[in-house]
C-alpha cells in the first residue's frame, strides 16, 4: 500500500501543477498549490511507515506553514482585488518584464 500511496501522491502533485499552470483565477491557482502541499504530505505519511514517525512530525509542520501561507496569500489577493477589482492573474502585470 505504501507504493500505491506514493503513486497517488505523485498523481495529485502533477494535477495540482497542471491547475496552477492552466487557470487564471488567483484563488484557484492558490487552491491548486494547497493540492500540491497535500500530495507532499501524503508522500511523507506513506514514507513514515518505512523510516519512522519523523515523517508525520514534518506533516504537522507543513500543515502549520500551509495555514500561515493561506492567511497571508489570501490577504494579498484581497488587497490586489481592492486595486484592480479582479483576481485574474492576466491583469497583474506590475512585476512583468
Amino acid at each position, binding site marked *: 500500500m505504501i507504493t500505491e500511496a506514493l503513486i497517488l501522491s505523485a498523481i495529485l502533485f502533477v494535477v495540482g501543477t497542471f491547475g496552477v499552470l492552466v487557470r487564471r483565477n488567483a484563488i484557484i491557482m492558490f487552491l491548486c498549490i494547497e493540492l500540491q502541499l497535500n500530495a507532499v504530505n501524503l508522500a511523507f505519511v506513506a514514507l513514515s511507515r518505512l523510516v519512522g514517525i519523523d515523517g508525520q512530525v514534518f506533516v504537522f509542520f507543513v500543515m502549520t506553514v500551509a495555514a500561515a501561507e493561506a492567511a497571508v496569500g489570501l490577504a494579498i*489577493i484581497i488587497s490586489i482585488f481592492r486595486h484592480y477589482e479582479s483576481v485574474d492573474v492576466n491583469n497583474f502585470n506590475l512585476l512583468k518584464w
Partner: protein
Amino acid sequence: MVDILFYVFAAVAIGSAFGVVLARTPVGSLLFMVSTLASVAATYVLLEAHFLAAIQIIVYAGAIMVLFLFVIMLLNLGHEYRRDLKAPLAMIPAFAVVGAMAGFIARVFRATDVGAGMMTEAGRGIDAALLEHGAVGAIAQPLFTDYIVHFEVTGILLLVAIVGALALAKRSV
C-alpha cells in the same frame, strides 16, 4: 478489504483533484478540494496516521477551506460561469511541464523499488510506538523533544503570519 478501501478513496481523491482544476465556479473548485482533502484523510487513516487524519479534517477542510470560502464570498466571485483557462498558446508549456513531470516520476518509480526493502529500524518501531503512546502521543513525543526548537519557531511564524495578514488586508496602510 483495506486495499479495496484505499483504491476507492484514491479514485475519489484523483477525481476530485481534476474537479478542482476543471470546475467552472470558484466555489465548485473549493467543494471538490474539500472532497479531495477528506479522501486523503481517509488514506491517512489506512496508513495508520490517525492523528494527522483528524488534523487534516479539522485544520485543512475545516479552517483553511472556510478561509478560502470566506474570501470568495467577500470578493463576490461566486457567479463566474465560464472557465477561466489561460490562452491556448499558454497551455502548450503547461502540458509540456506536466508531461515532463509525469514522465520523470514514472521513471523514478520504475528505477527504485519502494517497499519492504527500504524498511528501517525506526519504521519497524512505529507500530510499537503507536501501541505504547497512542495516536497523539506517538507524534507528541518527538515533537516536544527532538523538534522543540522547530515547534517554537513555527509559533513565531504563525504570529508573523497573523500580523502580516492584518497589515496586508487592512483598508488604509
